[in-house]
């Protein structure tokens, strides 16, 4: 059967009449191309968004975090214990202790709520991508009270490298005769930080961990220990955190970047499916054209079909020929649609007229990524839809009455 079908397909493609360039089949092809392209654009932008968001989150946050299981901070010996144990673990690349605190950054009359992170900036294998995220200036925090701040924060405070600004902590207020006086220190900007994540770039300030201890008056205390994992373990961070929890006798609260952002990622996954389902309806609508195109074609070819039937061709064979014809066209259309979709998406990510709202979407740049999975799913779904659509009209083939066709010539 395959042989005959192939023979017919070859003839169909080479046919001098170029039947597949006809109005209704061109419409069918265009319909599929447009809907597949739309779906591809949406999914590739969404996937790009998801990936870049994840990368960005990971670049700032490392993978596993150890906190004190009760309220309070980690002590020096906790940090030593944790780091000693982690050293022998094959999953771990590096770890580092840090102090995090909420502060107010101020310059003149501009103020901004910020998060300051005191880090071991000298450590070469720092668990996060602090050094890689420096946009301008230096990552070295060697001078006393130097700071690297998010580039958007710098813009908001209207300061740049070399400028001084104030950090104000409400946590360490001192009682003075004038009333409660918050702790205040002056820092100098040595570098600007750009992660791509709107939230971070508007809030983060990095300073030396010793300056931080000084500023916060918390000697030998740390907010947490962050841990960087081997690449292949990153996606299993939540499981690892769960295992370690037990291993460390529940002395520490151990979480992972996955737990931390689980709401966000669940939401993203769900949104992706919603986009996919809604846009699949486009393909469904496009496949109405498939029904009408095949119906027209059957009507037009009824003479041939009648003769082939008279000469012993089974309905099954003729139906398969029509379905294969349609599937080949659909395959072509889907491929074109996918390529077109990726191109358009690439263009959207390249152009600068239209950008995302960073405060809403975390990122402001449109990123594009089109993975093999999406590619296969779109291909599969559209071919299946077209296939089922083509089954509707081909029933008419078995209803064709040979004698009626032959008489009406």
């Amino acid at each position, binding site marked *: 059967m395959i042989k005959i079908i192939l023979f017919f397909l070859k003839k*169909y493609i080479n*046919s001098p009449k170029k039947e597949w360039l006809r109005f209704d089949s061109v419409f069918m092809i265009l319909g599929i191309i447009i809907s597949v392209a739309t779906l591809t654009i949406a999914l590739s932008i969404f996937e790009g968004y998801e990936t870049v968001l994840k990368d960005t989150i990971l670049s700032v946050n490392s993978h596993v975090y150890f906190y004190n299981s009760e309220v309070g901070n980690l002590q020096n010996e906790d940090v030593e214990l944790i780091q000693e144990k982690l050293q022998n673990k094959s999953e771990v690349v590096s770890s580092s202790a840090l102090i995090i605190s909420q502060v107010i950054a101020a310059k003149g009359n501009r103020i901004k709520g910020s998060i300051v992170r005191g880090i071991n900036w000298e450590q070469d294998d720092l668990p996060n991508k602090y050094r890689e995220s420096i946009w301008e200036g230096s990552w070295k925090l060697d001078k006393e009270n130097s700071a690297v701040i998010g580039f958007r924060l710098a813009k908001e405070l209207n300061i740049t490298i070399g400028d001084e600004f104030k950090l104000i902590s409400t946590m360490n207020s001192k009682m003075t005769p004038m009333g409660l006086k918050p702790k205040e220190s002056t820092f100098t900007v040595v570098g600007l930080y750009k992660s791509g994540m709107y939230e971070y770039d508007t809030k983060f300030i990095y300073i030396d961990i010793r300056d931080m201890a000084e500023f916060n008056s918390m000697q030998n205390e740390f907010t947490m220990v962050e841990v960087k994992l081997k690449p292949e373990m990153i996606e299993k961070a939540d499981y690892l955190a769960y295992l370690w929890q037990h291993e460390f006798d529940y002395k520490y609260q151990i979480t992972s970047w996955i737990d931390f952002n689980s709401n966000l990622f669940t939401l993203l996954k769900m949104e992706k499916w919603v986009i996919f389902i809604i846009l699949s309806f486009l393909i469904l609508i496009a496949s109405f054209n498939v029904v009408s195109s095949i119906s027209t074609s059957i009507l037009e070819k009824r003479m*041939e079909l009648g003769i082939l039937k*008279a*000469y*012993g061709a089974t309905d099954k*064979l003729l139906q398969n020929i029509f379905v294969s014809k349609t599937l080949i066209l659909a395959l072509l259309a889907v491929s074109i649609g996918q390529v077109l979709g990726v191109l358009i998406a690439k263009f959207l990510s390249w152009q600068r007229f239209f950008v995302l709202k960073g405060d809403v979407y975390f990122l402001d740049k449109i990123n594009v990524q089109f993975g093999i999975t999406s590619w296969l799913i779109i291909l599969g779904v559209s071919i299946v839809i077209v296939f089922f659509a083509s089954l509707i009209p081909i029933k008419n083939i078995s209803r064709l009455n*040979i*004698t009626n066709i032959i008489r009406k010539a």
Partner: protein
Amino acid sequence: MSLIKIEKLTKSYLEASGKLEVLQGVDLEVFTGDTIAITGESGSGKSTLLHMMGMLDDYDSGKIYYSDKLIDLNYNKLNEFRNKSIGFVFQSHYLLEDFTAEENVAMPMFINTKDFKKSLIKARELLKALDLDNRKDHYPNELSGGEQQRVAVARALINSPQIILADEPTGNLDVKHSEELINMLIELNKTKKHTFVIATHNLEIAAKMQKCFELANGVLKEVTK
């Protein structure tokens, strides 16, 4: 043993004006090697009878035997049976326009054997025998009416069917080409023992057949020459 035996075949059509009884008990026996003409005025039911014989349409009552085997539309291998046992030639050629002459001829054999090469070789042989070998690569619309009809005959012959049913095969041809085509059929009958049943208006053609029947008032009567 008769090749085909038709007993009391009836067929009617429902029309707006009522029931139209076209065949009202047709009896006919065809033997291998026969050439049979079926005449009758227009609307007498010649085509209808041929379609019934060729198992292209259902009949109301009666029986059709092929080599003593009762065959009807419910026969489960009907497609295969039609493909192997019956060749059709119609008033107009009904060649497939997307296929060349030789591909058209090869088609029934290709459907049957799935062997395209062999089918093409056989098709070329036939076209040669019918003096069409220089036309084999032409598409139907590049052929004259006579050539088209000869190609159609070649197609009917390719599976060496037990019987060839021809419904006014010369209907669209001029006198000269009609004569040529009929002579060709007679020749094929003599040399290859092909069996023909031909429906025709043309009494001259009918006279050239071994047996001649006339269809009138729904029944078939042999016309003695």
